[in-house]
């Protein structure tokens, strides 16, 4: 039997009737999902939802090479389910989350800890993996760190300077976003979406808009899609510039660090020129574009962008010209390609391990159906590679934006979305600057959110950082951490 028959297929940004999604007994469901993963599908989302007094599992997988997403669901059940994690480690955190959110026990899960809610259990020293031996010492960092950054807890098991194991415990930023969306969309929903991860405001709000448009059966006007693409690439440029500056700072290469700190702000100011907010709040709304970029403003945007991009490329160029900085990045914090695929890395972290994985390329929606950004891939998986992919993406996004400024579509009138279709499920993927953002929305019989599942790229990628530290000097943690620069609040929700 073709396994794919056991899934409903859809493209990114589409919706399906809930009852069109094939439903299988728990054991068949798990078997189908494993078979599909075995054939090379990638786990995009895996979550539970209540069904009467029981619960049900839903899996969303991606077949990247054929630009198809597939969805399946189990029959309602209670108690436990066989864990996919031992064979498919990319499922590990999804299963921990299912256990924490709905109490379904993944039998055979090797490291079943809560994810973000039950902090007393998460941060109890007893619940960390520990290495034994007279030479072993443990370094515990956070939740409050030395810099102006978000909170998280890191525990290193070290033999001298060498890190044998790093375990990362998060949850400190948990604000209850998924719960708050239930019964929505509410008036506050869009503002909560915009603050899932503040540095990815455009990414998450675009994923939300796309999910809602699919549920409402509305096609956003071309103009809105154009604005979203411009905003998304500006967000990418601002963050990549900031990250390369931060990496330079961590190897004490101050020229790039100083300049990039400022230039990052210049990119943010371009976002503010479009919508009035440096982080893109108010930029994206479901169904229409609240932004009207009239010719005068577009000309100013385009002119200031060219200057900012030149500054950014020059400042990062200094870093590449510095052999001692390059040498500090090489062969540090490497994750090899098979391991990256196994743990399900996404986004620039995946592309830095040689994986060809980019939603804009694999599952294009919106403006990316008409205009393509070249993919940036580098094979080595180390800090150098992650810096290099950022550098390539800055150039690609820069060229892309310069072209798009000349391709502004006509303003069309469009309506705000007022109601969503009942009993539908939509899947919306967006390539944010860190990687794949996934929103899965399911409506009830009244067209209100029955479940809204958010997966920030950091959810997939924190494990990558933990593994990158294996057998590295603990003093290399800062550059490894900056090279991933993952979101705490995007993970904690």
């Amino acid at each position, binding site marked *: 039997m073709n396994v794919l028959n056991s899934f409903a297929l859809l493209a990114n940004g589409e919706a399906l009737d809930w009852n069109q999604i094939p439903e299988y007994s728990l054991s068949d469901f798990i078997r189908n999902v494993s078979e599909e993963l075995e054939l090379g599908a990638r786990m995009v989302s895996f979550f539970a939802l209540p069904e009467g007094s029981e619960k049900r599992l839903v899996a969303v997988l991606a077949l990247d090479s054929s630009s198809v997403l597939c969805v399946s669901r189990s029959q309602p059940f209670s108690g436990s389910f066989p864990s996919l994690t031992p064979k498919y480690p990319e499922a590990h955190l999804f299963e921990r989350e299912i256990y924490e959110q709905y109490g379904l026990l993944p039998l055979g899960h090797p490291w079943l800890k809560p994810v973000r809610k039950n902090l007393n259990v998460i941060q109890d020293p007893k619940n960390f993996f520990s290495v034994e031996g007279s030479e072993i010492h443990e370094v515990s960092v956070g939740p409050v760190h030395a810099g102006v950054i978000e*909170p998280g807890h890191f525990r290193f098991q070290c033999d001298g300077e060498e890190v044998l194991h790093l375990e990362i415990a998060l949850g400190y930023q948990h604000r209850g976003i998924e719960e708050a969306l239930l019964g929505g969309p509410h008036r506050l929903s869009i503002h909560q979406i915009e603050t899932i991860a503040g540095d990815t405001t455009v990414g998450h709000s675009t994923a939300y808009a796309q999910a809602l448009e699919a549920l409402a059966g509305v096609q956003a006007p071309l103009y809105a899609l154009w604005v979203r693409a411009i905003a998304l690439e500006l967000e990418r440029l601002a963050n990549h510039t900031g990250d390369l500056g931060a990496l330079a700072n961590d190897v004490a290469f101050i020229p790039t660090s100083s300049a990039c700190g400022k230039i990052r702000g210049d990119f943010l100011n371009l976002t503010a020129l479009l919508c009035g907010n440096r982080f893109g709040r108010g930029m994206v709304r479901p169904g229409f574009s609240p932004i009207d970029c009239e010719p005068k403003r577009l000309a100013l945007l385009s002119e200031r962008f060219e200057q900012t991009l030149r500054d950014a490329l020059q400042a990062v160029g200094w870093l590449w010209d510095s052999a001692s900085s390059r040498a500090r990045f090489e062969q540090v914090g490497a994750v090899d390609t098979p391991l990256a695929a196994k743990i399900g890395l996404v986004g620039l972290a995946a592309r830095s391990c040689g994986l060809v994985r980019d939603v804009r390329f694999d599952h294009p929606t919106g403006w990316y159906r008409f205009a393509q950004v070249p993919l940036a891939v580098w094979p080595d998986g180390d800090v150098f590679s992650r810096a290099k992919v950022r550098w390539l993406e800055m150039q690609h996004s820069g060229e892309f934006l310069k072209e798009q400024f000349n391709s502004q579509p006509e303003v069309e009138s469009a309506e705000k979305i007022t109601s969503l279709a009942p009993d539908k499920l939509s899947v919306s993927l967006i390539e944010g600057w860190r990687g794949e953002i996934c929103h899965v929305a399911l409506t009830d019989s009244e067209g209100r959110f029955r479940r809204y599942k958010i997966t920030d790229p950091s959810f997939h990628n924190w494990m990558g950082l933990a593994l990158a530290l294996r057998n590295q000097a603990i003093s290399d943690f800062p550059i490894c951490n900056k090279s991933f620069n993952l979101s705490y*609040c995007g993970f904690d929700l």
Partner: protein
Amino acid sequence: MLKMFGRSLKLRQVSAGGCNACEADINVLGTIGWDLGRFGIQYVASPRHADGLLVTGPVSKNMELALKKTYDAVSEPKIVIAIGACAISGGPFANHEQVRSGVDAVLPVDLYIPGCPPHPLTILDGLLRLLNRLEKQT
């Protein structure tokens, strides 16, 4: 007290459920474009070196203890500055059971700086106003 801090104010930042936008625009004041140091204000790594806290986020319950401990580690006299809509009232997360809906539910606040996030200029204006160091308009 503020007179005492007037020429050298060291602040420790704590994100307590902040989305990283307020944090980013606090950070940016330290860069060459703003050069906060010229006003005698500096972000420091340890609460032991600080004269006060800059708090962002609605104060997630999961950060409440860490925030209180950080506050306790700052020596007296000390100030608390709440930055951004979340830190002021909980912002879009107000009344969620997972948060305390603002810093003043947990610590005494001396200055509120509004915005989502506040523009760096707004933050700078707030800090200088608190220190009574805004230059008089002529």
